[in-house]
Structure formats: structure tokens, C-alpha cells
């Protein structure tokens, strides 16, 4: 075989690529060509690109090491435009498409010539774990400055700065059996379950289903293994009870068999989803699968050996070499040295040899390897060096030679003279680690299996593992295991599986593998050339040894100290080697050292896929009142209150100039105080309470008395938690003897509803009472101001006479010819009527009010004016003037507390605790700034002595603060320690800008202290 001219490492034939379709791509600004079916990694290797990145800490040149999700080095930044940027894409998992543009995520100014590598070269041996923290520690204040430059030099990709043109979806899925992984075990499992009639989802992270069968040398039913995979996939695709999800990674195993699958729908087609008929399809989908049972057929990751210089480009794991040759028709070098601890890895040398390139030698750590693959290699005349290993790779930007020596793995020593073999590629295999990540997500700790030299998953109920994922690496065993596991899973659900005829596999004799992780060097680990364990985070064997010497014994501590496994690859290649090294240094076994915990996600997931459609206007639902359209048409600025959009203020345009908020609010305030204003108060929570025990219930849940509230009357109530702290307030009206209407704050409505249900259902189920939320059913319009009565009288049949319809009364009647409840409740201190009508009549009533209101100067006002007016009256807002640590007594609202009620209402007992009786509790007071032009900042801290040395004792803070057009000055509500007994005293508010404001403690009512205006 020879190679194509443009792609020096591409074989003329073989592989699963389509040579008829040539694709162009750009890497680090240079154009290359590959073929359909390539990954970016296989295309780069085909073009002989050795260096794909610079390492994280030492800036050493790095090449492609693996062929799948475990790749630690080949992280690229994808995207030809700003909006299309995607960071940290593994080139081994990115399908090649025409026009693909990628850059190395690391390396400055570029990967070939990297300034930071000087740090690695010169400072290299002086960069132990914790180097940055130890070196740039003092002064502490400078760390932020150092860090900025360290990060610039390190860096791991960047986020796009422009809006993502793509869309993403979430999909809820249900199935009997979820099979993760479509290799031999997964395919056999899915087929078994599917033929039995179970609802099956089969997902696989690769471009093509088949897993290891796609590059296997073995025959199934006397034909290439990939053929069998194709046949099974074809059959499964034709079954209605099967959902096949290729290009779909099971990234997280959450509670109760809830698994999140991330399907990349268009990422193999372009950097953004290519439009079809002017429509841009979903780029990726998050499948939220709730499975009956889950079968993990996730295979295994090959462990590389840890030897000196094992990070120089040209060092690969053995299986990746086979994958590149057999699946992509790419030989990643000319001369191979293979260093192994097991038989299986020999196939890399056989594949290399068949590709027509030179196998310099196979270096086997075992003294007498004798399996079938070993014999095949011998028969081809390949040199096998027994009882030895590659102890060091030589070379700078590419491997130039391998130093090979006989070793004693158990004694961890080099026993013979090293021989130097010229080569450009070193492949290694230290065995196979089952992919236990998803099983670990369930919280089950994996257990070490000495026979397979790896951790196997522990499984919680309903989870099964099959094949390589539980250490059964033999093909025939894996197929049978997958089928059996599927049958077990279905049986657990009470479903029957159908036995399938498994394909015939020729039995193969394999020799026993030996345990080898870190390869000894002539020099001790701390002085040997760097032996890398975690390539992505630049963690060396020496770093782990040093960590154990410094006293880190727990593997979790070693991990955090060295940063092993903290990269985006989560240490898929390096973790077991790292644990083995820690175990050796600590004189323990690997199971004694234990493993670290894997957490979701298995591979990085873009935020787009996590967010799905829940972004921008669909991020959170918006609630509109029945009058919303009117507010929009009249130029209201809106404020978010919970999910509600409430008019904030209504700026007018006068002489072509739009009012500022302050101007609009001042005008609205004066309109209410002098004429009449109207507020859309529909968002107030409204709960309809009925039943013979409704009154009793109110008496227990509110702090004040309800026993004597007559039909036609309303009362303001305070609601506390049982710790005595105010949680909500509002008025409740007696509609009839057994029927009340409770109002709550806008934001507190749902919480209060749940609160009422909690007490009724858990503590007082004997009370006969029901609660119904009617917030959306009624629209509420507050007409308030001296002219309110005259205006309302024009359009209602209700007698508004001041003596028959008194303050805190409510009446039923008609307003604007529709049925209405009118409540004489005031949150402004002025004469006020709250008109409640069925929500769908609200616009009609509102417009009728305006038709009649012009002559009275009817002015719409928003929440800001509402706040100013209520604060002028000292009316609190629960959640603004209170924060869950304020009692009714702290608010000076003893008048609303029924101390002598017969029951121990919610919150009562707590009011007599020693803490709630303290005299120095923070209490609500008014503040009048000494400079009337000053409007204090809400949240500003209060001190008694502004000359006190810093830190000053802080004694309270401002809760509400506004400018009052009525007073012509700023004013505020605040909580101050012992404030109620400090009337007339001066407090100080030191501000961030260095100014200190002075204010006088006054009562909380600033306007109409006697409350005469609301009673007119």
C-alpha cells in the first residue's frame, strides 16, 4: 500500500471513510484535506500534523494520543466566525465537514513556537504541584494580578461573544431499557430486548454504531465484525419499539434512572446547523430519559504506560493506532515501537505491519508472552523484546527514538542496559479500564478486580453492566454478556426477552496480562525526565510522588493537590495510573488507595444543550394582568414583580420631551394626593377561603383577631412563621359568615397558599376549610385620591355615602354595569376604593373609569408611585422592609397582635423567647435626612458614631427610601437597633464614596399621621 500525495499518512485503501468525498478544513490557519467519515483527529494525522496543542502548565508540544472521548490533548476551538465559536472540542470526536475551521485552544503566540514553553523548560523541574500558589503567594493582594497573566498563558478555549444562531431542544423520553453504548455487548443487548418487545433506547457517542467492532480484526459468523454490527443496526432501525440515537452521549446518570443524553444532531454537518428550506434545524438535543432499567455497555479505555517523555507527539495508546489504521485508513507514523503488558495490544503492531510500515519492535513487559496474537507477530518476523519496556521516549516535537530496557516491574527497577531504537511512533498499552463513569454517577463505589487489573462498576438496583464495561474484554464473552444482561433487565420489569442466536466467534487463546502502570527509569522518579500521568493537566509521576511525601495520603487529596483528573477529560486516561503510583509510593495496594469519584458530565456539554429553549423570552414565564395591553399602549415602563410584569410608572411626553422616572413619579404622587389616581393592583394574591371553620383557621394563622369580623368588613392581618418572624401581610374580607377573601403580597401568593395548606393538612386536619387561589380570576383597580368618590359614584349603583360605606368596608354591586366587589381599603392613605371585577371585564371597567375620570384629573400610576405613597404612610412591604428576621413588634405593630386570643396562633410562642424580647433588636423607624435633598440609598448601613474607628459597629440599614414630592424632601424607612426608643436621635450613613449622611430617627408615618385623609 502507498499513500495519497496530499495526505502523507493516508492509506490508498481500507477504513470506513469515503475517498470519493474530499473535504477541506483549516487548522491553525492552514488548509488541509480529509475525507467524509474522518474525524478532525484522523484527518490531522492523515496530513502528518504532529503538534495539535501546547500543554496546560509546561506548554510542551502535544499530539493526538487517543481516538475517542478519552483524548486529553487534541482540544480545539471550533468556529470560523465569532458567533460559531465552540471551545474545547475533542478533535477525536468531531466529525470532519467541509469548511471546518479549528484552532488549538492553547499556545501563545502559536503551538509551534510557544513563549510559555520557556517557563516549562527553564522552570520545569522547579514547578512542583502547587507551584503557582507557592511562588506567587506574597503579597496576597497581588494574586489577582498574577493570576490574570498566568491564565492568559494557560487558557483552555474561550466562549463566543456573539449570539448563538443555533437552537437547542429538550426531549422527555421513557423506555423500558436504555442501552448505553452500541459496541458488541450493547448491540447484543438491544437486539435481545427489542426482539422481546421491550421499548428500547440505544445510544452511542460515535458517528457510527458498532464500537470496537468497527476496527476489530476478528470475524463474526466468518465475516468482518463491522458487517454484523451493520446488520444488527439495520434490524433495530426497522423496529417500532426501538429508538436509535447515534452521535448521542449519555452524559449524566441522575437519580432513579434519569439519564441525560446529549444528541449532536448537526455538528457533523457544519459549525452551525445548515438551513434546510430556509429553516434551521435543532443543533443538539438533550434527551431526558426516565428508564425502567439501564444497561451500561460503555466499553473500556486503554491505559497508556507512564514512561519518561511519554507526552512527546508520536506517543499514542496502542488501540488508537489500530483505530486510525482500520477505521480511517490513516497510519500515524513510519516506524513503530510498541510497549505492552498484554496480548490484545499486539493488534496495533499487526495492523501497522499490514499497512506496510515498519514495526521496529514489540516490547513486552512479560517474560514469556505466548498468546495467539504474540505468535502471529512472531510469525511475521516482528522483533519481540521480552521482559522489557520503553523507559523513555526521545524527541522534541516528535518522537525520534525509544529507549528500551529490561525491567523488574515488581521491584520497580531497570535491570538491564538500555537500548535505543530509532522510531517516530511509540504506542503503549498497560491494560484496559472499564468505563465506569455513569455507574459512579449513581454514587456506587467501583471495586478493584485483580484479574482484569481494573475497577469494575458497582451497580445500584436497576442498573446493569455488560461486556468490557465490567471487565469482560473477550468478544464472545461480551456478546453473550450483553444478551444475558438485557434478559435480566427485562425480567426485572416483568417482561420477557427473546433469546437471540449470537454470532459465532473463533475462540482465541490469550496470555495473561501483567500489572504495569509507571515504567521504572534508571533515575528515581523525582529526577528522571518527566513521566506524564495526566496529559491534560500536566501531572507527572514525580508530582504524585511528591504529594505523597508531603503527607497527602487520601487519593482525593492527592487529586486536588496535583490537579490530576481535573481537566475536561476527567482523567479518563490517567487516573488509574495515578492511583497506582500513589499506591506504590504509599506502600499500599490500588484498592486500598481507592478511586476518586466521577461526576456528570461524562464529556463536556455546551450550555446551549443544557438550556434548550429555556432562554431569552422563554427563560421564565411572564404573567400579564388583564389590563396589560392598555399599559403598553399608554407608554408604561414595566417592572418585574415575581413573574408579573407590572407598570412601574407612566412617563408622559410633554413638548416632545419624555419625562424622567423622577418627574413621572412626582406628578403621579401629587395627582393621588390632590386629585385621583388609579393603579392596576390585579397581581395581589387572592385566596378564597370557605368552610365552617374558616374563621377559626384565620384566627390561628394570623397574629390578630378574626372572631368578630362581620360580613361586609375587611381587616388588615399579619402572618408570621412559627419563629415569630413576619412572612406576609394583607387584608382579608368577610364575604359571608363562612366565606373570606384573603389578599397576599404579589410575590408571596404561591407561598402563602402552600403555607395555609401545610397547616391545614398537617396540624389542623380537623378544621373544615378549603382554599382556592383566585388571583387570576379577579382584576383589581385601585381608585384613590380626594376625588375618588365622585368619580366612582358616576358609574356604580353602590351607595358610597361615607357613613354607610366606611373605611375597611366592602360592598357588592355593579361598576360600569358589571358585577363588582368594591373594597374601601387604602394603601396610599387617601380615600380609596379597590374595585374587583371578573378579569375579563376589567378592560371595560378601566376604560369606563377613564371616560369619566378626565374631568377629575384621573392619573394612572405605577408601582414606584405606589411605593412612595405607602412609605409616606409608614405602610410596610413584606420582603422589603422585612427579611425573615423581623417580628410584628420590631415593626411597632403590636396593635395587630392578638396577645389574648384563646389559641396559640402561629408565631405567638416565639414572641416570648429571650431573643425576641431583646431591647436592642433592630426596629423599624423613619429616617429624615438632615439634608432634605438627600435620598438615602436603600440597603445603606447605619452607625451611631461616624468617628468610630473602622470597622464601625453597624446598627441597622435603610429598607425603603424615596423622594417625597408631598414633603419636598427625601425620607426613608429603616431598621435600627433599639430604634423605637431612640426617636429624635441622629444616626449616620457612611457611603462608599466617602460621604457620610446624617439623618434623624423619626416615626414611620410622614404624611397625615392621624389617618384622617382616608376617612373622608
Amino acid at each position, binding site marked *: 500500500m502507498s499513500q495519497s500525495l496530499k495526505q502523507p499518512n493516508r492509506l490508498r485503501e481500507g477504513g470506513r471513510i469515503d475517498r470519493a468525498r474530499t473535504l477541506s478544513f483549516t487548522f491553525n490557519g492552514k488548509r488541509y484535506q480529509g475525507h467524509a467519515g474522518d474525524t478532525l483527529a484522523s484527518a490531522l494525522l492523515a496530513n502528518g500534523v504532529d503538534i495539535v496543542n501546547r500543554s496546560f502548565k509546561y506548554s510542551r508540544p502535544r499530539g493526538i494520543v487517543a481516538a475517542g472521548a478519552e483524548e486529553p490533548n487534541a482540544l480545539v476551538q471550533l468556529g470560523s466566525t465569532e458567533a460559531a465559536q465552540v471551545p474545547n472540542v475533542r478533535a477525536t470526536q468531531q466529525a470532519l465537514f467541509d469548511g471546518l475551521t479549528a484552532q488549538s485552544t492553547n499556545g501563545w503566540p502559536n503551538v509551534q513556537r510557544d513563549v510559555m514553553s520557556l517557563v516549562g523548560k527553564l522552570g520545569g523541574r522547579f514547578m512542583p504541584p502547587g507551584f503557582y500558589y507557592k511562588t506567587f503567594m506574597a503579597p496576597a493582594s497581588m494574586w489577582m494580578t498574577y493570576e490574570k497573566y498566568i491564565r492568559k498563558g494557560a487558557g483552555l478555549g474561550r466562549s463566543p461573544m456573539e449570539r448563538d444562531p443555533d437552537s437547542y431542544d429538550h426531549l422527555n423520553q421513557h423506555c423500558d431499557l436504555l442501552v448505553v453504548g452500541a459496541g458488541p455487548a450493547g448491540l447484543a443487548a438491544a437486539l435481545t430486548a427489542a426482539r422481546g418487545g421491550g421499548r428500547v433506547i440505544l445510544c452511542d457517542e460515535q458517528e457510527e454504531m458498532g464500537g470496537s467492532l468497527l476496527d476489530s480484526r476478528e470475524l463474526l459468523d466468518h465475516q468482518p465484525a463491522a458487517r454484523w454490527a451493520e446488520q444488527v443496526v439495520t434490524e433495530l432501525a426497522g423496529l417500532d419499539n426501538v429508538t436509535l440515537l447515534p452521535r448521542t452521549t449519555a452524559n449524566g446518570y441522575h437519580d432513579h434512572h434519569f439519564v441525560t443524553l446529549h444528541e449532536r444532531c448537526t455538528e457533523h454537518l457544519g459549525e452551525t446547523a445548515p438551513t434546510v428550506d430556509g429553516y434551521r434545524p435543532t443543533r443538539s438535543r438533550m434527551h431526558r430519559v426516565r428508564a425502567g432499567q439501564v444497561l451500561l455497555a460503555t466499553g473500556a479505555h486503554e491505559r497508556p504506560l507512564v514512561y519518561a517523555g511519554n507526552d512527546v507527539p508520536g506517543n499514542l495508546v496502542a488501540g488508537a493506532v489500530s483505530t486510525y489504521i482500520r477505521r480511517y485508513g490513516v497510519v500515524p507514523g513510519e516506524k513503530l515501537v510498541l510497549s505492552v503488558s498484554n496480548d490484545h495490544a499486539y493488534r496495533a503492531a499487526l495492523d501497522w505491519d499490514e499497512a506496510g510500515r515498519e514495526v521496529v519492535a514489540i516490547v513486552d513487559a512479560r517474560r514469556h508472552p505466548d498468546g495467539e496474537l504474540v505468535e502471529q507477530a512472531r510469525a511475521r518476523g516482528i522483533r519481540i523484546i521480552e521482559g522489557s519496556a520503553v523507559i523513555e521516549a526521545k524527541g522534541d516535537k516528535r518522537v525520534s527514538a525509544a529507549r528500551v530496557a529490561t525491567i523488574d516491574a515488581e521491584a520497580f527497577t531497570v535491570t538491564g542496559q538500555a537500548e535505543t531504537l530509532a522510531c517516530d511512533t511509540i504506542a503503549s498499552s498497560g491494560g484496559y479500564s472499564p468505563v465506569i463513569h455513569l455507574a459512579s454517577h449513581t454514587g456506587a463505589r467501583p471495586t478493584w478486580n485483580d484479574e482484569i487489573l481494573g475497577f469494575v462498576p458497582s451497580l445500584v438496583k436497576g442498573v446493569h453492566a455488560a461486556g468490557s464495561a465490567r471487565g469482560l474484554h473477550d468478544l464472545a464473552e461480551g456478546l453473550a454478556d450483553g444478551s444475558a444482561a438485557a434478559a435480566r433487565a427485562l425480567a426485572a420489569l416483568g417482561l420477557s426477552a427473546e433469546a437471540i442466536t449470537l454470532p459465532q466467534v473463533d475462540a482465541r487463546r490469550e496470555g495473561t496480562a501483567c500489572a504495569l502502570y509507571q515504567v521504572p527509569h534508571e533515575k528515581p522518579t523525582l529526577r528522571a525526565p518527566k513521566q506524564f500521568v495526566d496529559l491534560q493537566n500536566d501531572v507527572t509521576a514525580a508530582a504524585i510522588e511528591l504529594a505523597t511525601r508531603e503527607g497527602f495520603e487520601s487519593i482525593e487529596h492527592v487529586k486536588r493537590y496535583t490537579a490530576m483528573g481535573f481537566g475536561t477529560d476527567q482523567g479518563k486516561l490517567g487516573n488509574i495510573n495515578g492511583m497506582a503510583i500513589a499506591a506504590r509510593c504509599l506502600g499500599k495496594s490500588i484498592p486500598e488507595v481507592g478511586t476518586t469519584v466521577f461526576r456528570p458530565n461524562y464529556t463536556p456539554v455546551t450550555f446551549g444543550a443544557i438550556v434548550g429553549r429555556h432562554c431569552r423570552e422563554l427563560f421564565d414565564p411572564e404573567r400579564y394582568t388583564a389590563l396589560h395591553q392598555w399599559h403598553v399602549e399608554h407608554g408604561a415602563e414595566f417592572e418585574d414583580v415575581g413573574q408579573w410584569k407590572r407598570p412601574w410608572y407612566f412617563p408622559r411626553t410633554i413638548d416632545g420631551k419624555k419625562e424622567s422616572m423622577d418627574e413621572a413619579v412626582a406628578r403621579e404622587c401629587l395627582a393621588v394626593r390632590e386629585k385621583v389616581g388609579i393603579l392596576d393592583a390585579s397581581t395581589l394574591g387572592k385566596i378564597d377561603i370557605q368552610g365552617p371553620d374558616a374563621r377559626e383557621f384565620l384566627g390561628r394563622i394570623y397574629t390578630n383577631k378574626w372572631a368578630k369580623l362581620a360580613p361586609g368588613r375587611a381587616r388588615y392581618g399579619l402572618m408570621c412563621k*412559627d419563629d415569630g418572624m413576619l412572612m406576609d401581610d394583607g387584608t382579608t374580607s368577610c364575604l359571608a359568615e363562612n366565606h373570606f377573601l384573603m389578599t397576599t403580597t404579589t410575590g408571596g401568593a404561591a407561598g402563602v397558599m402552600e403555607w395555609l395548606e401545610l397547616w391545614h393538612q398537617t396540624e389542623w386536619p380537623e378544621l373544615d376549610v378549603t382554599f382556592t387561589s383566585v388571583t387570576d380570576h379577579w382584576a383589581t383597580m385601585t381608585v384613590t385620591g380626594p376625588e375618588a368618590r365622585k368619580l366612582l359614584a358616576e358609574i356604580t349603583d353602590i351607595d358610597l355615602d361615607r357613613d354607610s360605606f366606611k373605611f375597611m368596608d366592602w360592598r357588592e354591586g355593579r361598576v360600569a354595569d358589571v358585577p363588582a366587589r368594591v373594597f374601601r381599603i387604602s394603601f396610599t392613605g387617601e380615600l380609596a376604593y379597590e374595585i374587583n371585577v371578573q378579569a375579563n371585564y376589567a378592560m371595560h371597567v378601566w376604560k369606563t373609569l377613564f371616560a369619566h375620570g378626565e374631568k377629575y384629573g384621573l392619573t394612572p400610576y405605577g408601582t414606584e408611585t405606589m411605593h412612595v405613597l405607602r412609605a409616606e404612610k409608614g405602610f410596610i412591604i413584606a420582603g422589603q422592609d422585612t427579611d425573615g428576621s423581623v417580628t410584628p413588634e420590631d415593626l411597632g405593630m403590636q396593635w395587630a397582635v392578638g396577645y389574648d386570643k384563646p389559641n396559640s396562633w402561629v408565631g405567638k410562642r416565639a414572641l416570648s423567647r429571650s431573643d425576641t424580647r431583646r431591647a436592642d433588636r433592630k426596629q423599624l423607624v423613619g429616617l429624615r435626612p438632615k439634608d432634605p435633598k438627600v435620598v438615602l440609598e436603600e440597603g445603606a448601613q447605619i452607625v451611631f458614631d461616624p468617628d468610630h474607628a473602622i470597622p464601625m459597629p453597624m446598627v441597622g440599614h435603610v429598607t425603603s427610601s424615596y423622594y417625597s414630592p408631598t414633603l419636598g424632601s427625601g425620607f426613608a424607612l429603616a431598621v435600627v437597633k433599639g430604634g423605637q426608643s431612640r426617636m429624635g436621635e441622629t444616626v449616620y450613613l457612611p457611603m462608599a464614596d466617602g460621604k457620610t449622611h446624617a439623618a434623624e430617627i423619626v416615626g414611620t408615618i410622614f404624611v397625615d399621621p392621624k389617618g384622617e385623609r382616608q376617612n373622608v
Partner: protein
Amino acid sequence: MFLIYCPYCEEHREEEEFHPKGQAHIARPADPEACSDEQWGDYLFFRDNPRGIHHELWVHAVGCRKFFNITRNTVSYEILETYRMGEQPRFTAEYPEGKPAEAAAARAEEVERQEGVKA
């Protein structure tokens, strides 16, 4: 995300429909005024945090609005049972495999006795 069986709706629903409300079976003292500050403080502020079996109060917030109890293993997150207000758990720290038959019978009687409970 949990999959929770609502004992009132008698269906498994996603956790998104429910709110957790803390430890279950915390009875409010019958006569709060008779409690010492310490007793009242215990009732208000102190909760168990067991490793293993835990009884929790939940509400089917966007479903039937009913409060009910869950027996959950805080290590494995397995939900062993859900039961209505007024009922007692079958799985407890004492009986992690479920109460034996006689205890279960006693429980049935208990439920019988609480038939009047409207919850």
C-alpha cells in the same frame, strides 16, 4: 431528579412537580405556651440529618397540592415508600427492610383509627 409516587394521585410523577418541606413527623407541641424556650427552640430549629433512612415531608405542589411523607435513603436516594398524612412509615431506621407482619398490622389499625383525618 427523583421520580416520586404521589400517594393521593396514585401515580409516579417527576420531582419538578413537588416541593420538599423538610423532616416529617415534627409535631407542633400541643401547648406551645407550656414549652420552655429550649423545647420551643428544638421544635423550631433542630432537625435530624441521618445517613440512611430519613422520613421527609413533601407536597405535590403543582399537582394535587397534598402534603405527604417519603421514606428515603439519604445515601442511595432510593425512595422506599410514600405515605399519606396521618399514616406511619413501614421502613424505619429500626426496620430498614420494612416492619414485620405484626408491626404492619398495628400500622393498619393505626390508620383505621385515624380514618377521620381529612388530610
